[in-house]
Every structure is written in structure tokens, then in C-alpha cells.
């Protein structure tokens, strides 16, 4: 099957949408509600393109290619329609940018900036600024939900239904009063997928008290410390504290999906109860000591036990939570330094 986009021919197969073909050949079509890992949603109407023989522009994300289609992805009238789409959203959008956690990484901001929208468009708009409405209770304490910021792209509804399979969120009521609602809240497993796909600040992270703008934080890719699936995630760090966990959709094994422990379980890193100093038990009581003293004590005690009772009187428990390097050094220590094979770890638990 052959399709021409902006005058260039492309070989395509059955079942591809126009947006897939455009993205495969890096032709830019602006999108808002499009989400790769779920079936096309088609709720925003931003990705409209003109197809020869069709009177109305069609949505690229949900229109499948047919043989001989001629598609235009950019024209003044398309620009106008897309602007109208954005304006309709912006009419109800509150002036929260300075206090919204998502500002700086918000898809709506990028689009408005990209389209260079001016304030003078929607003349019938009432000039009263819509101030921030307080957050509404959501199905998990890990997420704050501001209904007034929602752009009704329904990405969260689709991801919760199709990708996660719990179907907690629904679109409630119609017209102006329509908004997303966690109707089946007890189905929620607080995996935070809705938080991850929300393009605006409607769903924002609620675990870390410290917040940071994109240019104030460092994003480090690492592996989740919990179960064996080994999801790859990104820790957003600001002022030596983990602020948020985000994830890259292209990296296996989890391809952009996390669970509650991966997404929200990072508070232990900066918890006050973390051990900060070596402790040595002196006449029954633990006292904070320097590294020198603690290490000397351990080394001397181990050496004396080794000489008195032999190497096999000492055993070591390695850890499935430490890195390969830690475990390698540990078993090398037990075998080469102590001289025993009494090394095990909790693989059995």
C-alpha cells in the first residue's frame, strides 16, 4: 500500500494509522491525547490532517491508512482548527502555572508556546481570572487531583482501563461539567500510571514535600530496588532529595510502566531514620563511633575468631538487595580473606 504525505510517497501496511506513518518518517503532527501504549483515544482533535476527498479534516491518530491516500499535515486552515482546539481547552483552564507542579514540563504549555497563541483570540471570554481550586480526594494518597486543570484528554481513563486493567477512572457528566472521576476507587492499586500519562497538572505527585522545576533537578536513570522484574525508572533529584520518579517508555523490561512501590516507594531514601554513623555495642548500649574504630573492631574480632576457631566458624549473609559488585566483593572477602565458603543470602525467602 502506498500513501503520499505532503507530496512524498510512503510504503505502508494495513492497520497503520496516519499518525504511525507520519511518526515513522518523522513528519511532525502535534498531538495531545495520543498515547502509544493504548488504542487511539481521539478525544482532543489536535492531530487533524486534511485527506483528499474528505470534506472535513480527519484525526490522524485514529484514521487508518488506505491505498492511494493523499494527506496534507500542515496548512493555514489546519493551523486555525488546531488553534480553535487549544482555545477551547484554554477557556476553562485556571491560571495555575506559577503554583502548578507540572509547569515547565506541561504539554499544554508547550503547545500554546509552539502555536504562539496571543490573549486576544477568544473575545467572548470573561476576563475574570479563574483562581486555583483546591485538590479533590483521589483514589490514592500518592496523587493530588485538580479537576479544574483537567483538559479531558482521557489518557488516564484509557491507560487505567486498557494498560493497567483496573478501570478505576470514568468521564462523569457531560458538556461543561464533564470531568474525570475515580468512580471505582477501591479497584485502584495506586500504580500511578494515570499520573505518568497526564499531560497537564491535573494529576500531580503528592508524596515528596519538596518540588522542583525541570531545570532545578537532575534526572538519573536507575533500576527499582524492589521486586525481580527490575523496572528501569528515573529518579528526579533536587537538593539531594528524591522529588519524583518518572520513567522512559522505550526502555525494556517495563517500557514505561511502574507499580506503587516503584513510583511512590522512594521516601525511605531520604528518611530521617537512615543509619548515619557506625554503631558499636559498648557494655550493652549502642554508641556512635567513627569508621576507624568500628572497622578496626570488626577486623580484629574476625581475625581473632579466625585464628582461634578456624575460618569455618565465621559465616556471611550476602544480600539480594545490594548490587552485583557489593555481592562479588562480599563473597570474595568471605572466601579469600576469611577463607570459608559459609556464604549465603536470602535467595530462599
Amino acid at each position, binding site marked *: 500500500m502506498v500513501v503520499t504525505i505532503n507530496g512524498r510517497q510512503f510504503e505502508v501496511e494495513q492497520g497503520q494509522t496516519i499518525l504511525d506513518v507520519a511518526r515513522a518518517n518523522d513528519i511532525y503532527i502535534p498531538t495531545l491525547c495520543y498515547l502509544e501504549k493504548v488504542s487511539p483515544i481521539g478525544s482532543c482533535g489536535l492531530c487533524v490532517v486534511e485527506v483528499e476527498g474528505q470534506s472535513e479534516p480527519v484525526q490522524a491518530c485514529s484514521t487508518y491508512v488506505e491505498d492511494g491516500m493523499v494527506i496534507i499535515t500542515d496548512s493555514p486552515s489546519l493551523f486555525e482548527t488546531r488553534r480553535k482546539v487549544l482555545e477551547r481547552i*484554554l477557556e476553562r*483552564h*485556571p*491560571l495555575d*502555572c*506559577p503554583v502548578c507542579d507540572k*509547569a*515547565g514540563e506541561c504539554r*499544554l*504549555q*508547550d503547545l*500554546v*508556546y509552539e502555536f*504562539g*497563541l*496571543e*490573549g486576544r*483570540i477568544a473575545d467572548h471570554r470573561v*476576563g*475574570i*481570572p479563574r483562581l486555583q481550586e483546591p485538590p479533590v480526594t483521589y483514589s490514592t494518597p500518592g496523587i493530588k487531583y485538580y479537576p479544574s486543570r483537567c483538559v479531558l484528554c482521557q489518557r488516564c481513563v484509557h491507560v487505567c482501563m486498557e494498560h493497567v486493567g483496573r478501570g478505576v477512572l470514568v468521564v462523569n457528566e457531560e458538556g461543561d461539567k464533564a470531568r474525570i472521576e475515580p468512580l471505582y476507587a477501591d479497584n485502584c492499586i495506586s500504580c500511578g500510571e494515570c499520573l505518568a500519562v497526564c499531560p497537564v497538572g491535573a494529576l500531580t505527585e503528592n508524596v515528596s514535600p519538596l518540588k522542583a*522545576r525541570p*531545570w532545578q533537578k537532575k534526572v538519573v536513570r536507575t533500576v527499582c530496588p524492589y521486586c525481580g522484574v527490575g523496572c528501569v525508572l528515573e529518579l528526579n533529584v533536587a537538593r539531594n532529595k528524591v522529588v519524583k520518579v518518572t520513567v522512559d517508555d522505550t526502555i525494556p523490561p517495563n517500557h514505561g510502566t511502574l507499580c506503587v512501590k516503584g513510583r511512590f516507594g522512594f521516601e525511605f531514601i531520604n528518611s530521617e531514620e537512615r543509619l548515619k554513623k557506625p554503631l558499636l555495642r559498648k557494655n550493652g548500649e549502642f554508641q556512635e563511633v567513627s569508621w576507624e574504630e568500628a572497622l578496626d573492631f570488626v577486623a580484629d574480632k574476625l581475625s581473632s575468631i579466625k585464628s582461634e576457631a578456624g575460618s569455618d566458624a565465621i559465616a556471611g549473609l550476602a544480600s539480594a538487595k545490594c548490587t552485583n559488585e557489593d555481592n562479588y566483593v562480599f563473597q570474595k572477602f568471605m572466601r579469600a580473606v576469611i577463607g570459608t565458603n559459609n556464604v549465603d543470602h536470602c535467595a530462599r525467602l
Partner: protein
Amino acid sequence: MTVPLEKVGEEMILNMGPQHPATHGVLRLVLQLEGEVVKRIVPMIGYLHRGIEKLCEERTYIQNLVLTDRLDYTAAMSNNLSYALAVERLCGIEVPERAQVIRVIMAELSRIAAHLLWIGTYALDIGAITPFFYCFREREKVLDMFEMISGQRITPSYICIGGVRKDITPEFLEALKSFTDTFETYILDYEALLTKNPIWLSRTRDVAVLSREEAINWGTTGPVLRASGVQFDFRKATPYCGYENYEFEIPYGTNGDCYDRYRVRMEELRQSNRIIKQAMANLPDGPILADVPYVVMPDKSDVLTDIEALIKHFKIASGAFQIPKGEVYSSIENPKGELGFYIVSDGSSRPYRMRIKSSCFVNLSTLPVMVEGRHMVADVVAAVGSIDIVLGEVDR
């Protein structure tokens, strides 16, 4: 440093500054004196070095605008103008007519303010107390006008990339009108005090002479160059902001001494006043900000009521814009001379390299030529004052 007894009568090293009333800021002069005559003079600068050029590399173009106020803080508006012109030329932004005329008014007003401050303090250096109060009386009026329009007296940041931040109000025009009408007579008052004053003449005539060749060879610009007989002004040579359609002359001296520098600056007051009058006469209507959405900040009143403006404000302030890759050197006629900005952009929202060419820095380097072997300590004070240096711009 205590001088050993047998050294008396021969050479003496004298440290003048960096804390000294006559050095117009933290300038330190090391004088090698033989009796009163200055054998050798070595200016030491850097006490007010804040590393503005390094700082500019870490901040976006919008944030750097605020730094430019702190260069020549006696004429902040024209610093902004020079920086704005450089960035606009880099991005190819067309500034609307009205904004250009407002910019001319503001640049000339800051020139008047800077020169009034110079005359006041220079007279004080030489010993004349009263001109200080006269000059600062007018300077106060100019600063009030700045405050009226931008809310700030010294560091207004009023001229921004793409135009000016606020439109001028009728009250401002009224104040400007009354100022320009009466200013001519006040200049006569200053001249009555100084121009023919015998003490003034003896302290400034033939003091710190800089010949025409030396002035050009040393790369001096502004009143120092013009006093040495070179009729050169960037507003005429490389016109910007529409200076070509204003009539004004370039005053210039003959033998390049302190007196000529004084006369050139007094004359420039008149010319600036003339320019402002012409500008006020044909002030066109229209927008005050260029219509370039991706880099020009929206007006603050819109930002508080309108989501598109708020989003644009947020994105521009947080440096989401991209200035095209390239480099530009643009300079204007600052009250002290040429203030040039050499900006190298790597296509991001932060300048890769921002070089600020300051005229005071180069003019100050001519001090040894003016003074060594010819003058005594008292004349050093007159020489330094006549160059009119502001250490903020010299040290950056």
C-alpha cells in the same frame, strides 16, 4: 608603608584609593612621586569585578537584561538599550516605531542624568561646591521621570528585548515637557558658575592633555575622543533607533584638555535636550512591543488575567526560547563612550559568550599618557575626574 628617613626628598610611592573621594568608585592609583610631580602612575582596577560576563553565560537572555543595569549605573537605560539592540539584531526582531522613539527619549534622558552627575561631582573634585546642588536638582527630576515610568530610579530595566516594557503616560509627557522647556536656562546657570570662572580655568585649562593622535591610537571614544578634536559620534556614524532623522550637532574640542572635555559635555546636554524635544514632537502611536511571540515577554497586566499570556510568560522566563545560532557585535553611544555587546549564541536560550566592551575601561588606560611627568598630584584628581569613569562598567 613607612618611608625610611634618608629617602626624604627623593621618590615616594603614594597609594591613592581604592577608598578615595576623588576616584569616583573603587579605583586605586599608585603614584610614584618626585616631590609633587607625578613620575609614574599605575591604575589598579578590579575591586568591583563581579564577573558579569561569566554570570551572563549561566542565565537566559531575559535574565541578563537585569545585569546590564548594573554596568554604568549612572545611565542604566542606555545599557539596556545597547544589550536589547544586540539581541534584537541576533534574532532579527523589528522594533515598532513608537518603541524606537521612546527608546531615544530614554537614552537621551539617561545621558543628561549621567552628565549632570559628572558635572556635579567633577566640580566637587576641583573644589566648586555649589554646582553639585544645581546639577542634582535637575538630575532628581530626571530620576523621578524614570521612576514614574518604570518604578525604578537607578536600575529601571525598562528597555527590554523587542521594545519597552510600559507605554509612556500623559503625566510622563507633561513632566518631560516642563523639564525640556526649562532645562535650557538651567544649563546657562551651570555655565555661569563654571565656564568663565578663573579658578576653574586654571585648574582645567591645559591639564591632562590628550592629543588627537594619542586619543585615536589609545582607542578612546565618547567625550574624551571628541574633546581631542575628533568629531565622531556613534549616533551619527552608525545610527540606530532612528537617530538619523533627528538634527543635532556633535560638539568637539580643540586641544583635548580637561576644559575641553567639560565644554563638550555641557554642549551635549543641550543637544540631548534638543533631541528629546524633536522626539516628543513626533511621537507615533502603535504598539510598544514587537510581535515576536517566542521571545518577547507579554505585558504583565495580561499575565495576571489571561492564560495564554501566563503560559507565554512562564515559558519565556524559564528559557524555553531558542535564539538563532550566530554572533553579533553591536554598540551605541553611551554617555561615557562606546558600550558594545559581542554576543556569541549557540542556539540555546543562554548566550555562549557575552563580551561587554566598556569605553571607561579604555579611556582610563590613557591616564598615564595624560599625567606622567607633567602634572602634580592635585591635577591627577582633575584628570581622573575628566575621563568620567564608572567602576561598575570598568570592572564588570
